[in-house]
């Protein structure tokens, strides 16, 4: 199974300003970028944000290759979205939508490329702390984020494998031959992951009563 088709960049050790920035600030940046994608109305503003984020990414030392690696898997989808929006709403709107998606992906990649996963999870646990009084388990929040980070490359890798299999059988133009196996494999992966977590006693409540 290929697993390198990672939508978000892997952590790169470093001592840059971005690496040293507080986790809360980086979380805020990602949140703000997500929010901005809803409120930005001018594609030039989106382009400026994307430029600034790419600059920060390169400043962190994670490298252009990783930046491209984070964006590349989206290229085909963005092209389709861009063309459709151009046809429907015109070039400025299409440009804004595509750029806003890229802003979100690069911001998220900046977070994952400059923050080790264990620190990310500790941050999630701290951020989810206040929900404890409502019966929520912060560790489960962290586990969910961890599984999400792990699942993205798996599913991307599955898609690459399925596409190769479809090509080998001359079915690369058949969407069913691509989508269905990825869907089935993903469900099987989710089931296996759940079983593996249960076997390791992860995701269980701390104070659950037993006989």
């Amino acid at each position, binding site marked *: 199974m290929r697993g390198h088709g990672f939508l978000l960049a892997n952590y790169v050790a470093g001592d840059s300003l971005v690496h040293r920035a507080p986790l809360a600030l980086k979380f805020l940046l990602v949140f703000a970028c997500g929010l901005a994608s809803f409120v930005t109305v001018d594609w030039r503003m989106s382009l400026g944000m994307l430029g600034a984020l790419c600059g920060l990414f390169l400043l962190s030392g994670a490298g252009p290759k990783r930046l491209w690696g984070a964006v590349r898997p989206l290229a085909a989808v963005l092209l389709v979205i861009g063309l459709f929006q151009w046809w429907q709403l015109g070039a400025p709107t299409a440009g804004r939508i595509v750029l806003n998606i890229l802003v979100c992906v690069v911001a998220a990649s900046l977070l994952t490329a400059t923050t080790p996963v264990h620190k990310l999870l500790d941050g999630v646990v701290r951020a989810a702390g206040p929900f404890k009084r409502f019966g929520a388990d912060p560790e489960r929040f962290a586990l969910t984020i961890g599984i999400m980070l*792990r699942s993205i490359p798996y599913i991307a890798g599955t898609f690459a494998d399925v596409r190769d299999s479809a090509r080998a059988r001359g079915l690369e133009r058949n969407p069913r031959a691509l989508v269905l196996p990825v869907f089935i494999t993903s469900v099987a992966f989710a089931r296996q992951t759940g079983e593996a977590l*249960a076997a390791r006693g*992860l995701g269980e409540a701390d104070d659950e009563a*037993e006989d």
Partner: protein
Amino acid sequence: MPNVTFDQAAVTVPVDHLPEPKVLLDGVNLQLTERRVGVIGANGSGKSTFLRLVNGLVQPSSGRVLVDGADTVRSVRAVRRTVGFVFTDPLSQLVMPTGREDVELSLRRSVKNGAERRRQAEDALDRLGLLHLADQSIYELSGGERQLVALAAVLAVEPAVLVLDEPSTLLDLRNRELLRRTLAGLDQQIIMSTHDLDMALDMDRVLVIDQGKVVFDGAAAPAVAAYRALCLASLDAQEAQP
């Protein structure tokens, strides 16, 4: 050694087109106290169901399974603290992007201090000679390395019993040997299913499972011989059919 007890444990599942439920495991009654226990049998014979009962991943339809007196249904969390489980495919078991992070994940519940957790994770990897792979993506590891990282993640919480479900099936000869040597050095009680008869011969006691029944229970060499005879008889019977 811990004591794993199967008390008339049976597992059945309903099948749509059949009037009776299908029997996956048929009333197993035994105690496992040996340090190394092997489980062999054909694909679909019930080996995985047998092993999953020990960790509480599968619940018996009737009877019960006890690990040091703890019922795998009523005290499943206590049982899982005692019994570690290693799956055939480490990719479905490793949840985090790198080995270090996955081992740390195992320790999150028991070790709250981040620095201490990191130290213990490194210790767990180092014990299996994997520290140099700690920060590599799990996708960049070989099959054997991945399986050992999965093993380190399970061993980090120091279970008394280690259950392994065909851990060598996806490994080449070198990695299989590496795994075999690693397992030989562990203090835990090991209960392992395998198709590798060399590994089975390392065990103190071997169970042969066929169609949900334990058809042989004894020392390794006679168990392997019984399994071979069973396979040959099954093939002969198939060929004799018109």
